[in-house]
């Protein structure tokens, strides 16, 4: 029964995401625009671009993820879906895990795919592109889950968006540091393994803690 409920939530999220795919393009378009416009504004100094590109790629990806968070649970709250989850008898953390994994896939995958392409446009080459892709694959889901926790905590609050950013941004900092750090290291020809391993650690921490914390926040939203 738990497997069936998990699959049902997962399928439902993917189906709903596909049906409002226009909305999902927003973070992607934001990301691409920042990356395309920055070199035009900064001038054709390739050395400078090479220096800031890793940070820029990560900061913009982080903000793009943040864009996709605010409304994560709002439809579920308004339509009564969370009541259904709580009364279903299935563990709320388990259902939250299904939703969080689906959410991470839906938001991160397009960004991870487009990230290395934009990095190429900013002048990154060779191994740095791989490191960027791997660091994003490890880090973006964590950003999504932190954001989801923030969205659950601010559920139903007026002007929750600003509060969400305040809660979420400090927690984003370690991910940003290790993510951008890995790419910087690769650009400078230093090994990036350390930062990537730390990101992997954060990923496991996220997948084990985020569902429990999100479930607790969702339960509180009902009281």
């Amino acid at each position, binding site marked *: *029964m738990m497997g*069936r409920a998990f699959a049902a939530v997962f399928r439902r999220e993917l189906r709903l995401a596909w049906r409002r795919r226009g909305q999902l393009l927003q973070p992607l378009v934001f990301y691409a625009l920042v990356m395309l416009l920055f070199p035009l504004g900064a001038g054709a100094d390739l050395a400078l671009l090479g220096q800031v590109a890793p940070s820029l790629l990560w900061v913009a990806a982080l903000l793009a993820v943040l864009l996709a968070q605010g409304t994560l649970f709002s*439809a579920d709250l308004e*339509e009564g879906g969370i009541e259904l989850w709580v009364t279903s*008898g299935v563990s709320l953390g388990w*259902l939250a895990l299904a939703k969080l994994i689906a959410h991470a896939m839906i938001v991160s995958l397009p960004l991870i795919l487009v990230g290395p392409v934009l990095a190429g446009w900013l002048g990154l080459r060779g191994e740095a592109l791989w490191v960027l892709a791997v660091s994003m694959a490890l880090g973006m889901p964590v950003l999504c889950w932190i954001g989801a926790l923030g969205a659950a905590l601010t559920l139903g609050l007026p002007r929750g968006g600003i509060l969400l950013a305040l809660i979420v941004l400090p927690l984003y900092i370690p991910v940003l540091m290790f993510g951008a750090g890995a790419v910087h290291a690769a650009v400078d020809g230093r090994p990036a393994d350390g930062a990537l391993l730390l990101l992997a650690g954060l990923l496991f921490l996220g997948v084990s803690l985020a569902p429990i914390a999100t479930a607790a926040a969702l339960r509180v939203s*009902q009281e």
Partner: protein
Amino acid sequence: MLEARGLGCRRDGRSLFENLSFKVEAGQLWLVRGANGSGKTSLLRILAGLSPAEQGELVWQGEREPVLWVGHRVAVSAGLTAHENLEFMAALEGDEAGASAAALEAVGLGAFSETRAGRLSEGQARRVALARLAFSTRRLWLLDEPLTSLDETSVNWFETQVHRQLDRGGAVVMATHREISDSLQGWTLQLGA
């Protein structure tokens, strides 16, 4: 089945109800009545485990079991079709898969099974959520104003389902303003009296 002992609820410093005790037994229908704001929804939410009981306690006879909850917000997702919504509910509540087509037919929504719920009227959306009464195996149903915006035919269908639930040893606790047919005899909880 479920016993409430001395339940109390306060909202914004005002007491909605106090020291409310009753025992829901198998085969019983309980009607929660009272004016707007008298705490009907609060009581049902406490029974459903959505809100904690501030005073008093809930005691289950035997193991605590999940209930069927149809709230004011019916948990029908606007982006999914009527059929997808019902299948999703069945999957979460552990009911048999594939029963939704017949259930939608029974509530008169057979022709709407592939329609997105966002395009349905309020009463139709409520019928989608209520359609699972036809196949739910849960022993206790908690329904908050289930008859709101339902037409005559649907109300009749609903009453048949309640009969069936009571006959097979289930119980129903519902809040309603509407009169229900005399064939359904129940206990009444009057709030705010």
